[in-house]
């Protein structure tokens, strides 16, 4: 249900789903890239710091040699404590000293389980071939000399498939003091000249960077960490985004579903209420029907039994009357059944409303009752200008007929029976009325007259279904019907409302 909705494969949903995943994907990629750079640079900076520390430490040693050790040596040589021929690289060559120190340093690192840090002092014209600058280093030396503002160089390099951080700085500027050993060959100490044939390491100039010191530290581990970190953070963010988006979508879906459900529940409740109403009506109907049909049946069987008994006893005086009663009761049942069918038919078969002139409908109803009216000498007064109504023509004519018939039937014993038909303003709006000056209805019974088979006068003709029918029809048209009377002998008025062309 809900999950299939979210992961639906309908066309629209598919596009929506792609769109849905695309956004967080794109965002994730951007974030991942940014993160990777951020983390890498952080880690590289960290590595750089480590290297720089080592380098600066070595620089410290270099400076010690340059500023303390050598000056002390030269001073004591001047004093004649040391021979002028004396040269030993272990004391005089700072590159030798630092290189050797670094070897000891790496050995100590190895003891601690740390990887070695590669060190190289490179120059273009080295004394020791081990210090020869390669292409990159030569370029760096030139760069550092040309641009004094550049103080360092770092790069991630791959050597033998492994990644390293390569960090280089220009070596100390050549000073006058340096030229003792690095100036003209002839001026260098004899011991040095003997040790190093050739021009390597000579003819340097003062004020020039003659070498670069570089360190190379493995950063394989850091790179891996960077990748893992980036990946996990990215995945985390991606998941969050997807969850967020799905959450929103879920919420929308849930809300939509809830709305749908709420509406459906409301509809169902309405239908339930309607059904309950219909059920109650049916129950009332069934009860009434069974009772009112049972009654004539009792009469029939009762008098049939009485007739049988009388015939057996040879009594004939009341046979005719009793048989009549039986017939009448049977007729009554027939009428009841017909009326019931009529009533139930109304419930199912009401034609779509059409515009009719109420005036016309009244005239047609009166025409159908012409005989009755003439016979009873009733005066009929119809208001002119009755409006157009939106009704089922035949049904309303039946209603009018019924009401007029009743008015005639219950006119009572009087010299001038009159029936008025018209429209008037009532508390339920504009209503039509059929008014008579007949026997009237007690106020208590103004509602009960509309009950099924209720008759105030048991002896009168008819089954008592007429007004129930009238109410049914009027209610089906969305109107109301009610009676008013000032009591016995004061006439009755029946009012009913109908949808006019104005109110529709």
């Amino acid at each position: 249900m809900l999950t299939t909705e979210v992961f639906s494969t309908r066309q629209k949903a598919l596009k929506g789903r792609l769109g849905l995943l695309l956004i967080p994907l794109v965002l994730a990629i951007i974030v991942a890239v940014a993160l990777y750079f951020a983390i890498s640079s952080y880690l590289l900076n960290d590595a750089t710091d480590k290297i720089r520390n080592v380098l600066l430490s070595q620089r410290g040693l270099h400076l010690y040699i340059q500023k303390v050790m050598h000056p002390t040596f030269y001073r004591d040589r001047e004093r004649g404590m040391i021979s002028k021929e004396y040269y030993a690289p272990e004391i005089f060559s700072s590159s030798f000293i630092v290189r050797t120190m670094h070897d000891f340093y790496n050995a100590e690192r190895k003891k601690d389980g740390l990887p070695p840090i590669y060190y190289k002092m490179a120059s273009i014209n080295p004394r020791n071939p081990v210090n020869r600058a390669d292409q990159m280093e030569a370029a760096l030396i030139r760069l550092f000399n040309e641009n004094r503002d550049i103080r360092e160089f770092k790069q991630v390099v791959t050597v033998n498939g492994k990644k390293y951080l390569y960090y280089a700085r220009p070596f100390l500027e050549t000073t006058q003091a340096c030229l003792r050993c690095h100036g003209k060959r002839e001026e260098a100490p004899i011991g040095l000249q003997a040790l190093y044939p050739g021009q390597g390491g000579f003819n340097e100039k003062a004020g020039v960077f003659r070498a670069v010191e570089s360190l190379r530290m493995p950063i394989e581990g850091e790179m891996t960490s960077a990748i893992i970190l980036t990946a996990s953070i990215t995945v985390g963010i991606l998941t969050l985004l997807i969850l967020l988006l799905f959450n929103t979508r879920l919420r929308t879906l849930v809300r939509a579903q809830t709305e749908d459900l709420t509406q459906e529940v409301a509809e169902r409740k309405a239908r339930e209420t309607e059904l309950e109403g219909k059920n109650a009506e049916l129950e009332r109907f069934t009860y009434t029907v069974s009772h009112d049909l049972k009654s004539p049946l009792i009469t029939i069987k009762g008098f049939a039994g009485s007739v049988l008994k009388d015939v057996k006893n040879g009594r004939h005086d009341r046979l005719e009357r009793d048989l009549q009663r039986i017939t009448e009761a049977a007729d009554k049942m027939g009428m009841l059944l017909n009326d019931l069918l009529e009533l139930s038919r109304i419930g199912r078969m009401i034609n779509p409303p059409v515009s009719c002139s109420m005036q016309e409908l009244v005239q047609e109803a009166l025409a159908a009752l012409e005989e009755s009216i003439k016979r009873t000498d009733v005066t009929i007064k119809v208001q002119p200008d009755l409006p157009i109504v939106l009704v089922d023509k035949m049904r309303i004519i039946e209603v009018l007929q019924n009401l007029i018939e009743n008015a005639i039937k219950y006119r009572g014993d009087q010299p001038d029976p009159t029936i008025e038909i018209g429209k008037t303003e009532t508390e339920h709006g504009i209503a039509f009325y059929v008014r008579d000056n007949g026997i009237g209805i007690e106020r208590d019974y103004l509602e009960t007259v509309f009950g099924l088979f209720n008759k105030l006068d048991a002896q009168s003709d008819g089954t008592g279904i007429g007004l129930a029918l009238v109410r049914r029809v009027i209610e089906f048209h969305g109107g109301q019907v009610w009676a008013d009377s000032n009591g016995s002998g004061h006439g009755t008025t029946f009012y009913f409302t109908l949808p006019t062309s104005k109110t529709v």
Partner: protein
Amino acid sequence: MTGEPLSILLVEDNPDHAELAIRNLDDAKIVNKVHHVQDGQEALDFLYNRGQYADCAAYPRPHLVLLDLRLPKVDGLEVLKEIKSSDLLKTIPVVILTTSSAERDLAMAYEHHANSYVTKPVDFETFSSLLQDLGYYWLAWNKRPW
């Protein structure tokens, strides 16, 4: 049977059913007079000796009321309520004699202190013996408070 004039008030709106009841009660020869009224209003008028029934001698207090439930004007149940809540009338036994076998009606009738509830069966023989039994029971066998 003591020979004093016994009377039954039959409250029945259906003239045919009333005729059947009267015939049966007559045949049984247990009661002296059946007074028949056709609606609830008349029944109460009779019992209270009002209106057209003001003559107490002509319309004495009945020994038994046979009451149909569905009556025009004042409903049978209303009449029952009225009788059983009136200090004057509540001692009169009221037997509901009606076509309805609905449980609802039965319950309501007893709730309003009907003395008995009998449904009109459709069979004549049964009906007549029912009325005879009623007559015998209420008038001959049953102890009356007056």
